[in-house]
Every structure is written in C-alpha cells, then in structure tokens.
C-alpha cells in the first residue's frame, strides 16, 4: 500500500489532466504568486505594455499627430532598401559591438578576478579605481577636454610640442578619429554593472570548494579558475554577457556628448542614434519603433549565441 502511494507521488499523475495538475501546482504555490505580484504587476504596466505597444506601432505610420494607419512591413522595407544612413548605422553598430562587447566583457571579468587575488585590505580601493569612471554621470566628458580641437587640449598640445603634428587635429570632428576615440571612451567606462556583479560573484563562491580542489590536485590559479571559479560563476557570467550586449549594441550617448549629433559624416552614427533621431526629434514613431524592433532582434540573437558559448564553460 505504502509502495503504491509512493510511486503515485513520484510518477506521472494519471488521475489528473495537465491543466488540472497546473492548477493544483498553482494553488499549492500560491505564496509565490503573492511574492512576485508587486514587482510583476508594476513590470507589466511600466515595461511590458509599452514594449508591446511599440511593436504594434512599428507596423504603422504613427507620427504622434495623425491617427495611425497600418502599413504592415513598409517601415522595415524602407529601412533596409531606402535608408542609406540606416545601413551606415548598422555597420558602425556592428563594429562597436564586436570590439567593445567582448573586450569590455573580458576586461571586466579579468580585472574582477585579478582584484580577487589581491590582499583583502586593498581590494575595495582598487575596485574604486576601476569603477570610478562609471560612477560619475558624465565624467567621460573629460575626454573632450583632453582631446579638445584647439591647442588648449592636452593631446594636441603634447603632439605639437613633440613635433608629431604641425596643425591641431579636431579629434572629435575628424572622420578618421571619431570611431577609435569613441571606442576608447566606451572601454574606459565599460567596467560597470557587470564588473561589480563579477566582483560580488567571486566573493560568493564557497571557500570549501577551493580547499577541496587543492586536495584533489589543482596546481595553480589557472586550473582553479577553469575548474572551480568559472563553473560557479555561470549565472554572473550570463548576467555580464547580457550587460555587455545591451551596452555594446545600445551604444550612442557617449558619441552624442563628445562629437555632437549627427557625428561628422555619420562616422560614428549607430542604430541607437538613428532611432533617437526618428523617435526623439522627428516623431516618426512607427519608423523608430521598427528600428527598435530590429535592434531588439539583433540583441536577442547575439544573446542566444553567447548563451550557447557560455554553456560550454567549465565542462
């Protein structure tokens, strides 16, 4: 008799249909719904609803003034076939993302890991040195001062003094310089949220595992990193990857502040700029929503790619 009930509990419940089973589970875990409700209700109102609305709007010609008409895929078609600047923006965004994404991700992890190897006393201070550029809202404007277009800029003055150049370079107004400089500034402020998550994640690993690893014959810190640290950090690594992707593909604010909008000859024009141009200035909401949907699809694609790569970590 007891054996029979045991199998009944563990195995498939033949007496219940799937819907009934789900309902039963829902009632059994009703406390969980109360716990997620405050957050999820607000999240649905302030995030999910606006996002769904924007996706719908991307199939219309909504411009904030007139009643929108359905235009189906017209916005998407004109983006790819009639809008040369959008294609420039795509190219620039990809260049930014391919360089800034992986470099900032690896830098965040390596620096966090290196800091974790330092004596505890100085860790907080060293962390501050690396995180400080991300703290101040627009402290990156200092790069505008350092690389100012006239000879009062430190970079120009130094290069003139050394005789490398004979005439000032307008760094942020020069097609050749805009991209590399913006990438450098992006990397300068890239040790942000994911860096902190890595630091916190490294603190949370059970010390006993390292001791057990040493007993099991782990010889150096690289083996320790590969066999113990990385597998334990998977959720944080995933978090960091999402941050790197959204940061790299959504890059744009720094360019605006340093180069002005639009950047010279669209040399640093990203998808983000294109979107803000149509959504924030021309109020062509349908068109800009279509851009947002495309950006979203790109990021989701990049994310699933990274997820697949990360699933191989430490196996």
């Amino acid at each position: 008799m007891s054996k029979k009930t045991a199998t009944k509990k563990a195995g498939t419940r033949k007496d219940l249909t799937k819907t009934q089973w789900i309902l039963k589970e829902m009632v059994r875990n009703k406390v969980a719904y109360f716990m997620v409700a405050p957050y999820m209700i607000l999240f649905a109102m302030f995030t999910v609803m606006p996002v769904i609305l924007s996706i719908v709007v991307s199939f219309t010609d909504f411009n904030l003034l007139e009643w929108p008409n359905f235009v189906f895929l017209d916005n998407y078609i004109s983006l790819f076939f009639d809008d040369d600047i959008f294609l420039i923006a795509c190219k620039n965004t990809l260049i930014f993302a391919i360089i800034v994404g992986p470099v900032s991700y690896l830098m965040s992890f390596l620096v966090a890991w290196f800091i974790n190897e330092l004596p505890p006393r100085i860790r907080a201070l060293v962390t501050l040195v690396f995180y400080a550029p991300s703290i101040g809202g627009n402290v990156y404007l200092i790069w505008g001062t350092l690389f100012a277009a006239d000879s009062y800029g430190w970079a120009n003055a130094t290069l003139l003094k050394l005789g490398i150049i004979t005439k000032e370079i307008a760094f942020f107004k020069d097609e050749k310089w805009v991209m590399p400089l913006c990438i450098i500034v992006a990397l300068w402020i890239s040790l942000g949220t994911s860096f902190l998550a890595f630091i916190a994640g490294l603190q949370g690993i059970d010390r006993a595992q390292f001791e057990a690893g040493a007993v099991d014959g782990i010889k150096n810190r690289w083996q320790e990193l590969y066999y113990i640290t990385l597998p334990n950090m998977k959720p944080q690594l995933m978090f960091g990857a999402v941050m790197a992707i959204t940061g790299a593909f959504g890059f744009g604010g720094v360019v605006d502040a340093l180069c002005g909008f639009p950047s010279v000859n669209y040399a640093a024009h990203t998808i983000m700029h294109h979107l803000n141009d149509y959504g924030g200035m021309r109020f062509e909401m349908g068109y800009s929503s279509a851009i947002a949907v495309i950006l979203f699809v790109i990021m989701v694609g990049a994310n699933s790619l990274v997820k697949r790569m990360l699933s191989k970590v430490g196996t």
Partner: protein
Amino acid sequence: MARLRTRKHKVVLARSAGGDAGITFVLAILGAFMFLPMLYVLMQSVKPLDELWMYPPRFYVMHPTLENFIDLFNLMNTSWVPFSRYIFNTVFTSVAGTFGHLFLASLAAYALAKIKFPGAGWMFQAVQLSLMFNATVTATASFILMSALGFLDTYWAIIVPAWCSSLGLYLMKQFMDTNVNDSVLESARLDGASELKTYWVIAMPMVKPAWLTLIIYSFQGLWNAGASMYIHSEQLKSFNYAIGQITAGGIARAGASAASTVIMMMVPITVFVVSQSNIIETMGSSGMKD
C-alpha cells in the same frame, strides 16, 4: 575567523610569484588608463581660472585653490528655487527608488529562483528580454500611462518605474540561483518557517554581495538622473539638472563646471565605498559548509 581562513586558503593553494607579478603588472597598466583621466578631472576642479586656460595646458595643478567650489556654491545661492530643494528631490527619489526596487526585486527573485511554480520560467524570460528593448520608443506609451495614473509632475513618476526596473531582478535571480543553498531552505521549511521568513532571514543574508551591488548602481542611476519628461515643475526637478543649468554658462563658468563634476560624484562614491567594503568583509564568512 575570517583571517584564519584566508591564510589557510593561501597555504593550501600554490600561488606562483611570477603570476602575482603578472597580475600586478596588468592591473597597474589598466589602472593607469582608468585613473589618469579621473585624476585630470580632480586637477581641473582645483585649478584657478588662468591655469584652466593656460597655454600649453598642464596636467598638474600649480596653485591649487577652492575658488571653483566657492564659485559654484555662490552660483547655487542665486538660483530661483532654493538649491536645497533640488538636493532634497534627488536624495529622496534616489533613496526611495533604490530601497523599493531592492525589496520588490529581491522578493520576486527569491520566488522565481527558489519556488517551482507554473509561470516562473516565462516571467523571468520576459524580464531578461526587456533589458534589450530600447526605451526611446516606449516613451510615448509610458507618458500616456503616467498621465492616466496621475503620476505626471509628481515624485511617483521617477520612483515607481525605478521600483520595477529589470536589471535588479535579473541580478538578484542570478545570485539566488547559485548562492542560496536549497538544502538550507528545505530544512527551514520543515521547521515551519513561512516562505516570507525564509526569504528574509535565510536567503537575503546569503546574497548580501548581490544586494549591496544592486544598491550601488540603482542609487547611482537615480542620483545622476537629469531632466525627466514627466516633471515640469521647477521645484520638483533634480540636482543634476539644476547643476547642469548653472554650469552651462560657457568659458566663464569652466571652473564651476569642473567643480560640479566632482561634487556630483562625491555621494555615489561614498555609497560605493561603504557597500564595497561590506561586500569584501562578508567574503570571509560567506563560505558556508553543509
């Protein structure tokens, strides 16, 4: 106790001197790249006006002065709405937004990570995906929503969206997944603790590094918030906005502007230092054994 364990950790694992040197070297190079521009920010703020516009420009300050800060405070006193009001607005929205977010997000993250219930999977998926959707295009819908709720031109318009930001939930869920031990939760439940109590007394202390991190960046985001499109009354606007208005006066205000960057950073840096040293302190005792 903590020190003893750290020392043991060092004894057990071989740390080559070459590796230590390599790590220090890489950190020093990257650190210089990070730190020198920050140092320049500090230098600029204490340079008198003639050094700010000196040719050729010098990296280091020759005659440090607090003139710029005094200038900035004098400019603040001339503002139409008392400056303390802007500061209050920002402090209030930053604190209320951060702690509300911390509480709601960690509560939901606990349920999503540690209670198996139908729907948990796609709820988390939705939060994760929402991080990748751009906010500019959702602005119209958000504005309509704010106006329907009567939040326009109130603190609510800043605070409530901060409560349900996606980032905090995602971070807390990821940490709850790894750092909270299921067997400990199970024994607490068997002892008759309610889920709410398990969350607060058992799970939250285990993810202390995570919520200290959440406090840092949520606070910093709200602190640095500029003008909001939901707020039009002057007396409800933010500190960052107000300081931007008075330093936007061109060359004559370059000194005050340099000082304002430093002033704006002070508070987030303080929050950072306090939380971060706490994170590192917890480290020694967080290695829990079962």
